[in-house]
């Protein structure tokens, strides 16, 4: 099977679906001639023309609002928000509109739209090119929120997202783009939008994470393996709906749990996972549920010592795992 980078896998998935389904189009800032600021849509305008890969004005509310309208009139738009940090002007359209249109119309209308956006830090992006604000959207019924961590899922999930009848927010960790490579089949396949995946099986500690943090967790888990502790690493993949069954299964099996995310912890995805475990796994726990995430500061600062302070690294995961192992 061909090895692809995460970014190539997303692009392949989009390109193949655009060839199969002429309703699919892309709308966003710099998506055309430049191919997006990270290059996800590179070459697509050349192949599919200016209508289907449409450079929008600099206006996020427009991008999402227009995508909603186009979706209601038969298209399958991909709205690209250049950085998750710049999604804010579109939040009204996402939360007040896209998430509620099916419900408020008593099922008459729906919004088959995909919103793609890069998130995450560790790229010297400072406060406004580093944020992980997925929890805001994971809170909202009516939205799907997914975060692939590897090229296989990236391709399968973008295709599944484009075939889903409801709005899907598809968030891409920008450090995965070129750093994460893996096997990606040529041709058509999908990956479900509501299922976690056990990336590595283990017995002693269950680690739940998503996006780039899956890789930090795997690396830290390997280090503990050398000392005889086996970690089960679960990639949540979907943050809404969240795969309760998978969470309960791994937490109950291991009895010790660490939840790892890059975002700050208060009222976050980690909070939700911890709550599910508290509700459903009380009798199986051998230690308090532990969480590791960013500090409670507004966003990731620029200067290297400050950025490092913020980032969740394999070293920090390892330290937390050792604390849990010793409990």
């Amino acid at each position, binding site marked *: 099977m061909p090895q692809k980078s995460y970014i190539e896998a997303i692009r392949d998935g989009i390109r193949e679906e655009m060839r199969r389904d002429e309703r699919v189009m892309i709308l966003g*800032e*710099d998506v*055309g*001639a*430049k191919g997006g*600021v990270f290059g996800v849509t590179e070459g697509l305008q050349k192949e599919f023309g200016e209508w289907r890969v449409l*450079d*929008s*004005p*600099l*206006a*996020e*509310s*427009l991008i999402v609002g227009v995508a909603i309208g186009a979706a209601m009139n038969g298209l399958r738009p991909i709205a690209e928000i250049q950085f998750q*940090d*710049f999604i*804010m*002007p579109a939040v009204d359209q996402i939360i007040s509109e896209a998430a509620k249109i099916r419900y408020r119309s008593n099922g008459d209308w729906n919004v088959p739209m995909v919103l793609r956006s890069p998130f995450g830090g560790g790229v*010297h*992006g*400072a*406060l*406004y*090119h580093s944020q992980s604000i997925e929890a805001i959207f994971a809170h909202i019924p009516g939205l799907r929120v997914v975060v692939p961590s590897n090229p296989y899922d990236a391709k399968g999930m973008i295709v599944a997202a484009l075939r889903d009848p409801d709005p899907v927010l598809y968030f891409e960790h920008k450090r995965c783009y070129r750093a994460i490579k893996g096997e990606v089949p040529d041709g058509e396949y999908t990956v479900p939008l509501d299922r976690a995946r056990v990336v590595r099986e283990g017995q002693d500690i269950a680690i739940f994470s998503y996006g780039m943090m899956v890789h930090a967790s795997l690396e830290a888990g390997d280090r503990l393996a050398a000392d005889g502790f086996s970690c089960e690493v679960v990639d949540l993949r979907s943050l809404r709906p969240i795969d309760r069954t998978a969470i309960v299964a791994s937490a109950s099996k291991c009895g010790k749990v660490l939840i790892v995310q890059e975002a700050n912890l208060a009222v976050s995805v980690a909070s939700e996972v911890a709550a599910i475990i508290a509700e459903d796994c009380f009798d199986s726990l051998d230690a308090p549920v532990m969480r590791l995430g960013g*500090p*409670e*500061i*507004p966003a990731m*600062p*620029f*200067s*290297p*010592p*400050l950025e*490092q*302070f*913020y980032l969740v690294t394999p070293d920090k995961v390892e330290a937390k795992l050792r604390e849990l192992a010793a409990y």
Partner: protein
Amino acid sequence: MAMTRTETKARAGLDAETLRLMYRHMLRSRLLDERLWVLNRQGRAPFWISAEGHEAVQVAFGMNLKPKYDWVAPYYRDLALTLVLGMTPKDHILSVLQRAADPNSGGRQMPAHYGCRRLNIITTGSPVGTQLLHATGIALASRMRGEDAVTLTSIGEGGTSEGDFHEAMNFAAIHKLAVIFLVENNGFAISVPWQKQMPTEDVADRAKGYGIPGVIVDGCDAIACYRTAREAVKRARRGDGPTLVEAKVLRLTSHSSDDDQRRYRTAADLEADKERDSLHRFKATLEELGVLHQGDAEEMRSELVLELDRATEEAEVSPFPSADTAMLHVYSETGD
């Protein structure tokens, strides 16, 4: 020596000293800009976003404002403006080197996210357009206190597509606030050309919809910029309300150090821009007018380069912020 009529016209009533100073400000910004690119290419600064090609109009406005009294809500291209108002090359070198002493943000923000409390330059984030509303609120406060302070805010033409642009102009015009909206139109928003950004060529046309003046100025003509800035500032200070100024400027560099404009602009287009560079044009004009003499510009340049060398050396030995400061300033540290 009596001046000819064309000279008088070209000078717009500006004395030689003012013209020379204007050129010096432009050159100072350009040389600093070039230095920051060098630091970026050497791998010492992860990011830079340039003002090259925008300097003339920024200098013109800077020179017509009262620093520390008037207010500025800038955007990331406004390097020259901040220098005229009193920030220094060292301030910005500290910022690109991410040092604790960076007065913009203590190394917390990306470079070119300007801010200087001492000079009434408000802190700016990355989201395009938000500053226009801040400027409008600042002007509201000045107005309510009966002060005649002027607030200048700026944005690229791409940014004018955001809703905030309309919301700010509308409110400022309703209340005749002393705010100037400066659109630095370089024709591109990263890779997106103006034709895909807006249906008409001139942002200034939109002023009509708010009942305020919309003025277009050639941003490569320093003297015209000065005249326009002087007029807009006077109007605001008199209490006659906002002006929308659109300066047609050039983006002589890629959008930022993360971009390569050769991917979406032709070589001929880039070459033509170089020819129109206001810095060279202004120098030629000043030499023609006899304001700059043989060797003056070169002397200025070596003086400014010396300043830059010193600033770079000092900034390089300035410490990084320590990790334990990352938790500071989320809320008040002192209760006030």
